[in-house]
């Protein structure tokens, strides 16, 4: 059954009539993901897929049973040209992870699932399922498969009224210290009134013999637990909740299949924004606040942190992500939406742009990559306490103390003074590769083989780094340098300083010039900065990327491949990494300043001209690394 599930999810994740399956997603789903088989098959045919490492592995795994020989991914009956969906739905008693996969030929599909699972199929009004279900419930009709996995909420089932209703044992019933709940539980879950319907089952296939081992769990009957040990109660409750989850999941799966379009997510405006004909895959998250509160609720309930106002911190925050697989690049665009309150804080914190003077110290021809970060230190120091206060405010035990402590720390910090020392924008450059002389200890032996310790030198190829950070007030930093010099941690060279850190694998040099703190590993580069002879070269593409982003990261595959002595490096998968770097172009991530309530992040991996398109390129990478 696991294999069956894996292959179904694998097919789904790679491929899987958008309108049809989307209408089955309930209107209150909080996460929806879609993978468009049609778009993907335009980039890679089914035949190419079957011949890929990925396709071969699936077929090999599924052919292991030997009863049926599959030669194509189409043999499983799924509609690879259609769109598959995943959604996540939160209920107070249970959460559902569900997949909706279109079926092209139901006979092929049923043949496939019965061969793999050895389970008996039952049918009711065209809705088919297995007579015995696993934890992941499968229900299907002629055109689509619905997989549902429900997980019950421990928090919900900790309520004594709920426990009594479902026949759960109170694990702490013998602990007198436990105060009996006086709350009247009003919010009954929708599932609680489910009554077992009398279903006239039509067995359509029963030629297979039963694999009894796998289905034993299904048969577990909730027994009377005479043993009063904690673990027996725990295990008993666990089995009962598991049985409930399965029962509710089966009902949910059938409801999904029968759901009319009017009750679906397709009328939700926010969800509609995530739709894009050109995207190969999309992800829509409606409300992080609800998800975090729900996901963390259980664990926080047990750890006593349930009063943290996580929900409010992420209130009204959602996300839309789109994956585009193009000929020359793979691109993921993410739009993260935050609440008005968070947007206000974020706007202030990211009000600062990256210092354009940094560009005078970048040479694109030598550069292997960079990371930039532009934040207003002053605004961050002012806004963080507000966010923290909001997070701690609702804690009944320590809320007041936390509030006081945060105010006290804010009082001690002189935001303006700190912000003058480090304004909050910085750039970290992988600026090149150089040969460095390093010392090591060896021994010299005399004629009598007595030895003395000698210091020898050798050349090492080391990567060079340059870190630049803006400062409006270098007085404090100069004071710090003077102190470090007195303590002989810092040595003054030709206009710059050398930092002596015994544990550091590299020599580190630094200087302060024109409101920039420079710290790097190349002495030559530091000298050029001080002397004003730095040979800068930076294209408008990078200038734009650096200037317009709150955060950006860039790696040049070509530069890395040409400069790093990969063959000599002692890291895992050298050959594979070498192949990858020689077959890679540029990769970058940029995150925009907030506009309205939206933060846009873009991730791009460029595809070498030798590759047909980005999907085939991705498959090549997977194949190389998986082998």
């Amino acid at each position: 059954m696991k294999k069956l599930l894996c292959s179904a999810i694998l097919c789904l994740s790679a491929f899987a009539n958008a309108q049809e399956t989307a209408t089955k997603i309930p209107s209150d789903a909080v996460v929806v993901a879609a993978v468009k088989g049609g778009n993907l098959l335009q980039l890679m045919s089914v035949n190419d897929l079957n011949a890929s490492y990925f396709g071969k592995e699936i077929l090999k795994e599924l052919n292991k049973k030997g009863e049926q020989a599959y030669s194509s991914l189409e043999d499983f009956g799924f509609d690879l040209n259609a769109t598959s969906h995943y959604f996540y739905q939160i209920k107070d008693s249970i959460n559902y992870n569900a997949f909706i996969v279109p079926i092209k030929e139901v006979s092929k599909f049923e043949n496939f699932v019965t061969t793999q699972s050895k389970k008996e199929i039952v049918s009711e009004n065209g809705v088919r399922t297995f007579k015995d279900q696993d934890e992941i419930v499968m229900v299907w009709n002629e055109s689509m498969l619905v997989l549902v996995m429900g997980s019950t909420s421990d928090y919900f089932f900790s309520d004594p009224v709920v426990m009594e209703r479902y026949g759960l044992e109170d694990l702490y019933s013998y602990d007198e210290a436990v105060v009996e709940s006086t709350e009247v539980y009003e919010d009954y879950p929708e599932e609680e009134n489910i009554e077992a319907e009398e279903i006239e089952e039509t067995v359509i296939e029963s030629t297979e013999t039963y694999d009894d081992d796998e289905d034993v769990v299904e048969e577990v009957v909730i027994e009377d637990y005479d043993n009063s040990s904690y673990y027996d109660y725990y295990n008993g409750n666990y089995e009962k909740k598991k049985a409930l989850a399965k029962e509710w999941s089966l009902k949910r799966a059938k409801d999904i299949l029968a759901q009319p379009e009017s009750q679906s997510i397709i009328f939700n405006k926010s969800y509609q924004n995530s739709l894009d004909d050109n995207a190969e895959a999309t992800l829509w998250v409606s409300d992080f606040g609800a998800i975090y509160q729900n996901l963390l609720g259980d664990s926080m309930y047990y750890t006593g942190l349930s009063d943290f106002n996580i929900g409010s911190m992420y209130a009204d925050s959602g996300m839309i992500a789109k994956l585009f697989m193009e000929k020359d690049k793979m691109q993921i665009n993410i739009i993260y939406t935050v609440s008005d309150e968070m947007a206000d804080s974020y706007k202030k914190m990211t009000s600062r742009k990256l210092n354009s003077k940094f560009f005078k110290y970048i040479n694109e021809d030598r550069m292997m990559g960079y990371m930039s970060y532009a934040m207003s230190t002053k605004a961050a120091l002012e806004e963080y306490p507000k966010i923290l206060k909001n997070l701690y405010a609702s804690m009944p035990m320590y809320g007041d103390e936390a509030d006081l402590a945060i105010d006290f720390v804010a009082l001690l910090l002189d935001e303006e003074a700190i912000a003058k020392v480090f304004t909050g924008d910085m750039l970290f450059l992988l600026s090149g590769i150089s040969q460095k002389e390093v010392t090591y200890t060896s021994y010299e032996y005399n004629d009598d083989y007595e030895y003395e310790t000698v210091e020898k030198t050798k050349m090492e190829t080391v990567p060079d780094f340059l870190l630049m950070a803006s400062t409006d007030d270098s007085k404090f930093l100069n004071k710090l340098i003077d102190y470090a010099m007195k303590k002989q941690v810092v040595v003054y060279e030709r206009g710059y300083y050398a930092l002596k850190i015994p544990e550091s694998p590299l020599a580190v040099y630094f200087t302060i010039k024109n409101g920039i703190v420079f710290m790097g590993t190349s002495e030559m580069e530091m000298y050029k900065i001080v002397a004003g002879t730095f040979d800068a070269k930076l294209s408008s593409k990078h200038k734009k990327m650096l200037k317009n982003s709150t955060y950006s990261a860039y790696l040049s595959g070509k530069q890395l491949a040409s400069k790093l002595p990969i063959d000599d490096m002692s890291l895992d998968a050298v050959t594979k990494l070498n192949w990858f770097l020689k077959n890679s172009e540029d990769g970058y991530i940029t995150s925009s300043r907030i506009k309205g309530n939206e933060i846009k992040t873009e991730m791009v991996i460029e595809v070498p001209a030798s590759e047909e398109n980005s999907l085939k390129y991705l498959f090549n990478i997977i194949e190389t690394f998986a082998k």
Partner: protein
Amino acid sequence: MKILAYLKYTLAVFLLCTITSCFEVIEEVNLKNDGSGSMIFTLNMSKSKAKLASIMLLDSVNGFKVPSRKDIQKSLDEIVAELNKAEGITNVKETADYDNFIFSVSCNFKKIDNINSMTDDLWRKQKNKTAVSSYLFDASKGYFKRHYQYDVEAKKQYNKLKSENKKVFDDASYTTIYRFDKEIVSQTNGSSKISKSKKAVMQRVSALDIINGKGNLANTIQLKK
């Protein structure tokens, strides 16, 4: 401050990509005429110090957990504690230079057999049947014998390593130095050399030769009577 953590890891990984590594081990025995003496065991990884310093910035590398300075010190202290418990062994000292990654342990022994007993104990604790190496000194006949038996397990373990981990052994070496009060008349190991004063014998073998069984540390040294 997450960004600083990223920078630290980026730096370490890039350094690991470029810097080479190797190490040397020196085993010294100074033997007096009465059979007592001293022994020093040194592990010098100074030539790899830039790489080791980079590795120390990481939690694990190539699937191996990177020991912290505390872990290393604990292991050294354990060795010293074992030596202090051993019969006939005195004046146990350890040195640890974490800047240059040089570590040594030294001790005095009443008779060379005390070293054998201690190494036998250690080997037994490691669940190995017999030690591959032991010493014998016969004062009456005037010879010193270094017993060495190639252990195929070394090659098996080495072959299990990934190619990137095997590189550590490429330039590594093992040096033995035996010093005596009396002059040496003869020695049986073809790759060992007798010093000018004829009171010391030295042999340097590459770690790969030891692993592959090509390097033989066995020797019988005949001293002047």
